[in-house]
């Protein structure tokens, strides 16, 4: 179970990394922590000619305040982000989601940016980023651009990053005072989820405002905003019946596949169930600031 032969560079500066990656075109892959990529390499499911390792770009690791929100360098190890006081304080939903990523040994190596850029539909970090309305910074041959999480995830393992573009930072806007929760169900602790939900609830004059988001994972080709469910929230008070009504349609528009771990019907049910649990937890946090 060995990878195909490839070459490897670890450029010391971002510009060089971008240049090398751009010149490699489709044959190049970015290597961040490697915890998603290397299993695929070992199984020969991914067959690059060149890996561009970002490990020497120390400027890409770290957490900083960004206004009242928080910005996280793409190369920040998941475990470091999970325990960073700024993240716990300003983006607790992300910290909670990170705690579900694999096991500690995975999170010590895996990076926040790597998980986002890999865009696995079962992954926790993308779902949290989408629920938190994060903005992702991409650096490419043509310069730097910022993309909303909403627009970043494009499909199964597919993102808006163009060839040669490298995800460098994720910025999460201030969300003080909001209710939040991350809930998932997996066969075993540390496994990818069968279904999960990342929820943010925002009150405006006692009613749930447009910043309230429900993101579900595990039943689509990417993390998925449950817009029908969100619509049941907007303008309503956070009562049990409103939350239940939202959860009941959390699977609207989803067409999950059946697989060895469960039928499509079961997955839809789990999406509703996880959403209901997440909404309940988020509403409780809303009530008790």
């Amino acid at each position: 179970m060995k990878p195909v032969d490839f070459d490897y560079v670890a450029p010391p500066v971002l510009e060089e990394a971008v240049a090398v990656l751009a010149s490699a075109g489709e044959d190049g892959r970015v290597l961040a922590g490697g915890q998603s990529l290397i299993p695929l390499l070992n199984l020969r499911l991914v067959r690059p000619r060149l890996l561009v390792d970002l490990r020497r770009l120390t400027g890409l690791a770290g957490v900083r305040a960004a206004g009242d929100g928080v910005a996280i360098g793409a190369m920040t190890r998941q475990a470091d982000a999970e325990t960073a006081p700024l993240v716990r304080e300003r983006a607790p939903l992300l910290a909670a989601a990170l705690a579900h990523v694999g096991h500690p040994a995975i999170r010590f190596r895996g990076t926040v940016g790597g998980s986002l850029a890999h865009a696995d539909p079962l992954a926790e970090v993308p779902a949290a980023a989408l629920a938190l309305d994060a903005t992702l910074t991409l650096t490419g041959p043509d310069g730097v651009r910022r993309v909303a999480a909403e627009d970043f995830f494009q499909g199964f393992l597919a993102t808006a990053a163009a060839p040669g573009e490298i995800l460098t930072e994720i910025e999460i806007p201030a969300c003080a005072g909001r209710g939040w929760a991350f809930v998932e169900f997996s066969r075993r602790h540390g496994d990818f989820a069968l279904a999960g939900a990342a929820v943010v609830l925002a009150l405006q004059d006692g009613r749930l405002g447009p910043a309230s988001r429900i993101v579900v994972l595990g039943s689509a080709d990417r993390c998925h905003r449950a817009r029908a469910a969100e619509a049941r929230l907007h303008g309503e008070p956070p009562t049990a019946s409103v939350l239940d009504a939202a959860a009941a349609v959390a699977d609207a528009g989803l067409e999950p596949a059946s697989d060895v771990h469960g039928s499509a019907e079961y997955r839809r049910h789990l999406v509703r169930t996880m959403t209901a649990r997440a909404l309940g937890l988020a509403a409780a946090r809303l009530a008790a600031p």
Partner: protein
Amino acid sequence: MSVTGGAAVAGRHAIAITVNDVPRRATVAARTSLLDCLREEWALTGTHAGCEHGVCGACTVLLDGRPARACLTLAVQADGARVTTIEGLAEGDRLHPVQEGFWECHGLQCGFCTPGMVLTAVHLLETNPAPTEIEIREALAGNLCMCTGYQNIVAAVAWAAARLRERSATP
């Protein structure tokens, strides 16, 4: 292949890793895992290949002090790093308290998962000197053991935690 990159020569890369406080060098293909590098280049065979896709934890080493899957780390990624493997844990014949705990509590049977388990536990106790049973189980949940049913492993880690606390309480 002739892409740029510090020490790359015809697709091979010179690396230097400090393993168990010993500086070591090798020239490896980019695709060589840290696991294969430790085992094949440096004959440190205490680190085991159990699945090579990051699930079983048999290949766990401490990379710059923190547990990592050696099968999910390329050797080139570890260039310049400090690695601790199971061979580096005991001081001569004196076992590390976690190793001692595994012996005292019969926390191993076939021994194949043991190096990864022990190193994972060592890190746990460095960061959490008094873990609860559930914390121990959570910390070890990324390491599969097919022999013990985990019960004596959990007991071994708890035993080691107590021993380490005793030691640190003794001036």
